[in-house]
């Protein structure tokens, strides 16, 4: 097991560097010139030759003329930066946001909390509903309840999340007025930070987005759980277990369920990544102060250091997700431990 975990860790670190390099290279395609931007206000006062000389010097100081790989290493914090010390991503320096005029780290801490909060809520809610529902449908395959759920679940995974949001907004906000339409807190509310009221207000505001996200992920997950459970129930060892006279509960939850869990775990990875991607849409639709909203703002204002940092966040989330899946594979399936 230890060797297996180590192997996966090494692999993930490599993938992280590959992706981050790709992202960095991609950003360097953008025709921006920070040196020129910094010098532009002084342009009127300088003579042309002086301007060019200062421009060249500034480019050199900023290290803009260096090779892409060197700049990447500097940005990452693998080699020494321009000020002679390691100051990059690995040291916690995520750059400076031009839009918000403050370091990216400060800018993203609050939205990051919100996004993780929303996604964890939605994940727990979705898994809590889909797993029992899928198992129940698989056991009662072909019954009325199962067919109804199957038909409904097609709706769930066919409709884009923003259409679901609009429908829910119509009913829950406009028609019934249960939830607020937008925002992540009541405007101008004077709560003490960390107080109970603040938390309640936050939950009140994120309730509808979480409901929408849960609903959107119900369809696909339920179907997945159902089909892998059906597959497990159709195997020979289940027939054997039944022939032995085991109670149906034991057959389902002990024999079939454990084996069905394996493909389900795989699908959770894809779904978990999807839910972070989906929160970009949700946060924009509901105007929540989260990573997705910030990302959208950053892309629209071409604030690329900010965008790059958030993109790294998404990448890390997906990598950690895949690591967790691999580890849980190891726990659930003994064959993995033995073979690798």
């Amino acid at each position, binding site marked *: 097991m230890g060797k297996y975990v180590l192997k996966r860790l090494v692999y993930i670190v490599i*993938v992280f560097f*590959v*992706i981050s390099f790709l*992202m960095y290279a*991609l*950003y360097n*395609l*953008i025709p921006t010139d920070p040196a020129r931007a910094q010098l532009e206000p002084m342009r009127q006062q300088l003579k042309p030759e002086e301007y060019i000389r200062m421009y060249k010097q500034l480019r050199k100081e900023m290290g803009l003329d260096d090779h892409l790989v060197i700049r990447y290493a500097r940005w990452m914090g693998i080699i020494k930066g321009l000020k002679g010390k390691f100051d990059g991503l690995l040291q916690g320096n995520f750059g400076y946001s031009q839009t918000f005029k403050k370091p990216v780290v400060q800018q993203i801490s609050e939205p990051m909390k919100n996004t993780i909060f929303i996604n964890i809520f939605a994940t727990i809610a979705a898994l809590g509903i889909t797993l029992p529902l899928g198992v129940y449908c698989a056991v009662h395959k072909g019954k009325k309840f199962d067919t109804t759920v199957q*038909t409904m679940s*097609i*709706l769930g*995974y*066919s*409709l*884009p*999340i*923003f*259409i679901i*949001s*609009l*429908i829910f*907004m*119509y009913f829950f*906000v*406009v028609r019934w007025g249960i939830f607020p*339409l*937008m925002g992540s807190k009541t405007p101008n509310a004077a709560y003490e930070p960390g107080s109970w009221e603040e938390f309640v207000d936050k939950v009140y505001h994120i309730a509808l987005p979480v409901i929408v996200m849960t609903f959107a992920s119900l369809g696909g997950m339920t179907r997945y759980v159902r089909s892998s459970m059906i597959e497990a129930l*159709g195997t020979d060892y289940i027939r054997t277990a039944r022939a032995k006279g085991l109670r149906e509960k034991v057959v389902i939850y002990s024999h079939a369920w454990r084996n069905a869990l394996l493909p389900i775990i795989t699908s959770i990875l894809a779904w978990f*990544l*999807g839910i*972070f*991607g*989906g929160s*970009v*849409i949700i946060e*924009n*639709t*509901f*105007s929540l102060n989260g990573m*997705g909203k910030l*990302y*959208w703002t950053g*892309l*629209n204002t*071409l604030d690329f250091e900010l*965008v790059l940092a*958030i*993109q790294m966040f*998404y*990448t890390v*989330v*997906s*990598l950690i997700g*895949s690591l967790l899946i691999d580890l849980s594979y190891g726990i659930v399936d003994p064959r993995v431990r033995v073979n690798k």
Partner: protein
Amino acid sequence: MSKKMKNNTPKKKKRSTLARWFRQTVLRKHDIDYDNPEVIETPLKIVAQNFFAKKTAVFGVVVFLLILLVVLIGPYFFKLNLGEHEQTLIHVPPSNNMMKIPKEMHGRISDIAPGTTFGIGVDVDGKVYSWGHTRVTERIDLKDIPDEVQEADLKMIAAGMDHAVALDTNGKLMVWGNTRRSQARFTPDMEKAQKSGKNWNIVQLEAGMQVSAALDEGGYLYLWGNRSNFDLGIKREYQGNIAKIAFMANEYISLLKDGNVAYTGIKGKGSPFSKIPDELLQGKTVDIAATDRTCAGLTEDGKVYFWGRLEKGENEMPEIDSKIVKIEGGRFHYSALLENGNVVSWGNNDYNQAKAPAQVTTGGNVKELYVGNFQNYAILENGEHVTWGLSGFPLGTDNFGRDMLVRIINGGRVTMLVGAIAVVIATIIGVILGGLAGYFGGTVDIVIMRISEVVGGLPFIPFAMILSAVIGSRLDPTQRMYLIMIVLGILSWVGTCRLVRAQFFAQREMEYVTAAKAMGIREGAIIFRHILPNVFSLLLVSMTLDFATSMLTESTLSYLGFGIPLPTPTWGNLLTGANNSIIIQQYWWRWVFPAVIFGMCTICINLIGDGLRDAMDPKSTER
């Protein structure tokens, strides 16, 4: 064996050769069935049978084909105009009643005042009716005709963009509708004239964009309303000398009592409207009319002269075999009543407003003609009415006054095209890489699978947004559409690749592959000509499901503003900005219709994909 026996039966021998030939050629199928009771069906046939046995799948196919047909053929009939912007038709709800005169009025029409999207009419008893889209704001509705208007004995009515004016036989002037922009604020001289009755024998009542005019028999003109974008002034020398007026969008012109045309407003200097053709200054003008940006004058000999900003074909008058007696202007078109009782319409025909039906162009029995912005009403001699022009928008209009139906149909074409091409790209990449990995295995497999893990590990939506933002900023809308196709294709091949790889692993151990290898067939040919056809059925299922996914992703990107940019419509960007309560509640047609058709489309594709998968699954036939 059975065939032999059958041929030997005496019954058979009696048949003529012709009959046998007929049986063998035309009814051969029946013969074979008879001879081989155990019917062997091709796998394809079994799949088709299974597939069509599923009601949901058939439903999906039918509805999807219908949507596809609409989306493919529709754009040829509902042409998209990207620069379309019609200020007077913003946020019109789904309607078909803009020219629907109430039943109570049929045959008893005395006067009609056509507005922008509505009409107001008076019947012979002086009762007022309204029809069409009369709602101005949430509170104001022109349908709510005040009691004093309903009770009065009306002489004249006029309807503008958001208000209506009525004059009763006692000379009392009433305004209703939107009155927030001083539509009901009469000028002091009007108040005086109304009180004294002097110079208050109104012969013409006009209403335009938040402005109105009343013309006295003695040539005295009263103008009132919103001054901010209308030339409401009257030059002193013309006052008392005006015979008729016509409203443009922001100006008006007058026909004087001496038969000349004049720009009688005060902002006429340099305006194209004050460059009146010489023929209309000879004292022989009998009628004038105006559209939004052009004017027309009719002379005694029946000739029409146009001036102003002639941009929408307002001066392209057809050949006429009779003399024009009356001319009326809409927003971008003219209609004229001829001496022989026919009607001609010309000018802009976006809403069929310049396409008069044969009944009025050749019938020769038109008595009266009323022309609104985009509507025409012709009253026949027998009291019946004929209408043509804009009757409404079946799916409403958006914030630029564009027809939602046209945008949904054209948007569907873009979304489906992008989805289809993205799937094709993804499938090609997935098949090549998956095939190579699955067939060769070993190092090739490891390298390709690592690549696919990296690509599959990228968070999809954020990454597509970045690519679109970084590369797309330098592209024009068409190139951007291609970019989105390529981005979606490049990011979504992983699933296909894994599927093909797994299939190839299973197939390459089969005998036919060994046989092909033994015959010395090139490996490329083995992969693509021998193995691939066996994988194709599963590939078809995954392509169908991926098609729905690609459409969803495209629409999501467009919804977020990183896909295909406006004004090119797609099913995604039609919903951009729909997440505010005003649109959700009041302008519901702006999100309900795109959402419904898009939802239907993806649901149907998923139903088809599910049906195909079930039909191809050998396990499902066993059950």
